[in-house]
């Protein structure tokens, strides 16, 4: 049986946030008498993650995804509740725990700006107590997986964003961690760079059975990597489960565009009991529930003279967008 590597129960986090009124008067008032209020950004959440799982954290900006990741890797102390990651309390930041995890942030970098990435890799290797030969072997292996070669010897400031992100990944993975926390790793990357990064993460997970916790606003990252998603809404979990179940629940019907040979066939089809969305000459769009797609299509193909047909999936961004603004999704 696969063991839980992350156990979170009744976790909450509050921050003291300063608020300021607009204008000069507000600024002066804010300077002399700062008003702060305690804001509960994470509210009593519980979940478990099994070893080797890739879990996507979904949520609107400010929902609390990054705060959850930072508590999981031990950067922020929780206000209430408990967290166990790989059998340790993360905020104690013990050496063995830190050697087991890594955090990659799409919008922040750890590479030394003026030097080629290879220098940062060897510096990280010495911090993780990895000898020179082993470090060389790991750099070679990871650079092959990431498909970077000459870039390792070019100063970071001269690299493109995509090349820099690959180098960031290599720097963050040189100690071969078992748990990866990725906060918007594909932010700002072009389509090809995003695809390569996803391919790499998939391969890394398959090769090492590493657990990956990922936040991203690019739905493609989530759909191609994560079987399970945790949706966060205003600090609470609104959904925790399989991604395909969520999609089925949120999008129970598919739209099918049928091109009939003649307009008469289209009229016949219109009157045959299907839910029709619209009809233009010999083209008709009908809605069919996911569970009845196969049987319905069989009926249509057997009884009508069909020239062509297209199944339209609703855009996933649109479906997930609905999750981000709703509080509860019960499947």
């Amino acid at each position: 049986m696969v063991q839980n590597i992350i156990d979170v129960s009744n976790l909450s986090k509050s921050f003291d946030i300063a608020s300021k009124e607009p204008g000069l008067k507000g600024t002066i008032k804010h300077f002399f008498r700062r008003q702060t209020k305690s804001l509960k950004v994470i509210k009593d959440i519980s979940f478990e993650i099994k070893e080797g799982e890739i879990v996507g954290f979904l949520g609107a900006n400010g929902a609390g995804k990054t705060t959850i990741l930072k508590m999981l890797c031990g950067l922020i102390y929780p206000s209430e509740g408990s967290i166990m990651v790989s059998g340790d309390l993360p905020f104690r930041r013990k050496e063995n725990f830190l050697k087991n995890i890594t955090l990659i942030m799409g919008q922040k970098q750890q590479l030394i700006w003026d030097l080629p990435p290879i220098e940062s890799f060897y510096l990280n290797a010495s911090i993780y107590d990895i000898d020179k030969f082993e470090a060389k072997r790991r750099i070679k292996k990871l650079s092959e997986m990431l498909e970077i070669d000459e870039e390792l010897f070019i100063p970071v400031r001269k690299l493109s964003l995509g090349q820099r992100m690959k180098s960031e990944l290599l720097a963050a993975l040189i100690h071969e961690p078992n748990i990866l926390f990725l906060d918007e790793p594909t932010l700002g990357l072009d389509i090809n760079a995003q695809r390569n990064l996803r391919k790499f993460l998939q391969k890394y997970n398959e090769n090492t059975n590493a657990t990956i916790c990922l936040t991203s606003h690019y739905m493609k990252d989530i759909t191609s990597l994560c079987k399970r998603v945790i949706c966060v809404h205003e600090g609470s979990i609104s959904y925790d489960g399989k991604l395909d179940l969520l999609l089925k629940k949120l999008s129970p019907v598919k739209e099918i565009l049928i091109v009939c040979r003649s307009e008469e066939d289209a009229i016949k089809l219109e009157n045959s009991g299907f839910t029709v969305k619209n009809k233009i000459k010999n083209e008709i769009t009908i809605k069919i529930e996911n569970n009845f797609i196969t049987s319905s299509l069989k009926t249509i193909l057997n009884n009508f003279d069909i020239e062509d047909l297209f199944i339209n999936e609703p855009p996933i961004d649109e479906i997930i967008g609905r999750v981000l603004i709703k509080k509860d999704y019960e499947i």
Partner: protein
Amino acid sequence: MNLRKYLKVYKKFIHTSLASELEYKTNILIDLITAILSLIGSIFLLSIFFQNNGYIGGWKFEQALIIQGIYTILNGITNTWFNPNLTEIVKHIREGTLDFVLLKPIDSQFFISLKKINPSGFLEIILGFFLLFFCIRINQINLNLGFLTLSLITISCSICILYSLWFFISTTTIWFVKTWNATEVLRSFLYIGRFPLNSFSFSLRIFFSVFIPIAFITTIPSEVFLGLSQFWKIYLEVIVATLFLITSRKFWLFALKFYSSASS
């Protein structure tokens, strides 16, 4: 603590810092020229103070040069290690890159205090030592093991006090986010360390001994050089330096509990 690992990491810090700095040759050259001009300017300023009066606070010009020498060494250390690293703490906290430091299996204070080195500060340290050796000759100071040990102890204590003060102020960034000015004020107070403590009024002497211990940083090591320092002062400096180091360490560990990281 694995000393071998820390030495290995520190070797890497030196290597990467030098490599980074050497990327900008002109900048290094300008820094080196600035260091030489700054020392010449300071000695000139000191000589103006002594022009009309042979003594200030009971110190002759030749003796006051020792303070200048120690100040130059400390300033060199500040520019080599403290300035490039401790000012970065503010940046780390403001931008949230302290996250990367805290998630490394290495002591975070060691990492942020020693990661960078500015090689141009080395010249100041060398110039300071040259000035000290010159002062040893003109003041006819007798060099012996006891003298060297005491000098080394007091200068090390001065470095510890200066580091702790600076680190303490930088740590407060965790709450106040922006504390550039406080470290600048500390630097400007350090300029005062170029003059003998006795040249100030009684109230200022108390202020610079108790609140901002500039007196401990330059005057006591200089007194040791001239054989004027009483042992209790040296003991006191060792105690103050130890207390400052321990307090800054404890304060850092305490402050980290309040670190909330920058938002993404």
